[in-house]
């Protein structure tokens, strides 16, 4: 975690702030639909436009969902909490303040475990607080670039959408860790079914606070907030770039100033935006329009009880079921349908490793090629169990099983019927194979002599001959067995 440079050894320190838009039906403080893809300015009302006299009312589901997120991250739900006003002027915030939280966030003190290159670490979660999203600005004129815009167009559909901000502790030290944290957090949010968490559409967004300090220095360096990363890859690149920039800047005699910098994906650099207003300049005060919330254990208990299994715990369970770590890690956060198929098939007697391998490898590959979703195929848990039985009974070779799987996915029918119809059933009837084997022995007396004499490697030769005359349909295990019996 230490960066060595010409002048010495530096420790980068990274904290991540993640914003997640909740997919509630209605907005945080009013009944407008949450649908950021709707025609601009069609989901607006006096509350989210800040018309005079309009009053906010808290959407209870949003509070339940932030509690769900917090509990999943091991946070405590603050029993007595309030909303606060964060005051600033910007065209996307019509009231002149954002309703947010300050010293009493709904959730505090949690953690998320991450792993980079096999090294596990725990990232502390300082808080998760509830707030409202801002409107969407579009900078008009000269290609929409913010610096050269001649005017700004504002769409208030997003204004007031429930937004959860999750603030990590400064526990990360590399771009790769920042990326792993963001990815793990997204998996948790998806598992909780509270947001679609789409990076490219902005329903999940992250900012990184990056600072560097000389190795061993107890005080944190001045932090720079890096924004505008819209993929995990750009988050990692932006953080690594900012670390190098700060070290180079300090080494050339400069001082890092507290500021917000914009990541530019195209040139791979961060660019200064404006001096960040200090926290006190937001003049937070308790929101007088909203009474406090009392979220006691009676309120929290049902939410805690209804928490779904999280990807990390599920992966551990899958490993216990016998899956290799790789398959468990792929399957645990996979689509609900894939997991359901896996769990039902195993529950009905399917072999966990075999079923997982089909789902993780062959089914995934088939779906990608066919450009479709698992939900759109007729594949059932029963099909997977049946397919497993055909393989176990020696009726299908493993490669034939994959072909059958493709036919089942394409809707051609159930495995046994499909295998039959496509002539893929192995000959596992000893009687049927024996005459073929006898003919081959008769045609190759010399080889047979050597085989009988103990030349084991000739097994391959005979099995190959049998496979050739049966057009690949003989069960190789059975053929070897018969050969051994005859010798």
């Amino acid at each position, binding site marked *: 975690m230490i960066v060595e440079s010409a002048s010495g050894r530096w420790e980068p320190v990274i904290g991540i702030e993640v914003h997640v838009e909740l997919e509630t039906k209605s907005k945080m403080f009013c009944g407008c639909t949450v649908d950021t893809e709707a*025609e601009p*300015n069609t989901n607006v*009302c006096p509350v989210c436009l800040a018309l005079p006299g309009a009053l906010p009312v*808290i*959407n209870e589901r949003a*509070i339940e969902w932030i509690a769900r997120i917090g509990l999943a991250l091991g946070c405590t739900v603050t029993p007595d909490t309030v909303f606060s006003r964060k005051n600033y002027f910007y065209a996307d915030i019509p009231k002149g303040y954002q309703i947010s939280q300050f010293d009493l966030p709904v959730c505090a003190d949690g953690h998320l475990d991450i792993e980079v290159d096999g090294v596990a670490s725990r990232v502390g979660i300082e808080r998760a607080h509830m707030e409202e999203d801002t409107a969407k600005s579009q900078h008009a004129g000269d290609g929409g670039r913010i610096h050269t815009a001649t005017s700004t167009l*504002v769409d208030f559909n997003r204004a007031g959408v429930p937004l959860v901000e999750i603030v990590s502790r400064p526990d990360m030290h590399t771009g790769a860790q920042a990326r792993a944290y963001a990815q793990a957090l997204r998996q948790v949010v998806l598992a909780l079914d509270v947001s679609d968490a789409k990076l490219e559409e902005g329903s999940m967004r992250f900012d990184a606070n990056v600072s560097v300090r000389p190795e061993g220095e107890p005080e944190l360096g001045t932090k720079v907030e890096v924004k505008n990363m819209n993929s995990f890859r750009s988050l990692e690149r932006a953080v690594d770039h900012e670390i190098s920039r700060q070290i180079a800047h300090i080494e050339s005699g400069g001082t890092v100033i507290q500021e917000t910098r914009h990541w530019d994906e195209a040139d791979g650099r961060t660019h200064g935006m404006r001096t960040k207003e200090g926290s006190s300049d937001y003049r937070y005060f308790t929101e007088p329009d*909203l009474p*406090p919330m009392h979220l006691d254990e009676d309120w929290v208990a049902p939410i805690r009880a209804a928490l779904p299994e999280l990807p990390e715990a599920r992966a551990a369970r899958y490993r216990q079921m016998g899956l290799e770590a790789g398959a468990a890690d792929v399957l645990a956060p996979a689509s609900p349908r894939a997991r359901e198929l896996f769990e039902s098939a195993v529950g009905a007697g399917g072999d966990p490793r075999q079923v997982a391998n089909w789902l993780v490898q062959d089914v995934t590959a088939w779906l990608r090629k066919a450009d479709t979703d698992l939900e759109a195929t007729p594949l059932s848990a029963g099909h997977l169990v049946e397919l497993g039985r055909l393989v176990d009974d020696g009726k299908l070779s493993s490669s034939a099983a994959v072909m059958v799987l493709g036919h089942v996915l394409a809707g051609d029918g159930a495995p046994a019927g499909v295998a039959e119809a496509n002539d893929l059933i192995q000959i596992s009837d000893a009687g049927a194979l024996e005459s073929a084997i006898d003919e081959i022995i008769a045609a190759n007396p010399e080889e047979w002599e050597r085989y009988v004499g103990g030349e084991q490697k000739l097994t391959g030769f005979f099995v190959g001959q049998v496979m050739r005359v049966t057009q690949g349909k003989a069960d190789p295990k059975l053929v070897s067995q018969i050969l051994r019996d005859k010798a």
Partner: protein
Amino acid sequence: MPIEIDVAHVARLARLSLPEEDLARYGEQLGLILEHAAAIQGVETEGVEPTAHPLGIVNRFRPDEVRPSLDRGVVLEQAPDSTETHFRVPPALDAS
């Protein structure tokens, strides 16, 4: 004991344009308000439950239900400047 306030800074944060000659007067008045707040800070509150709201009510929630929004045409008509679909405001950042 009057409290020193950077009135120009406070005015800037609130986007208020105050004439130079009024700054001292506002400073004095704001100072009195802060003195009052300081006096309240001094009150013995040991054993008093904190309160964030005068009415003592909590958890005034609404169910997550959609209610009709306003008509866009009517809404945009109220704005000083708009396009057919958007509010239009001056550029968000100076060109500098």
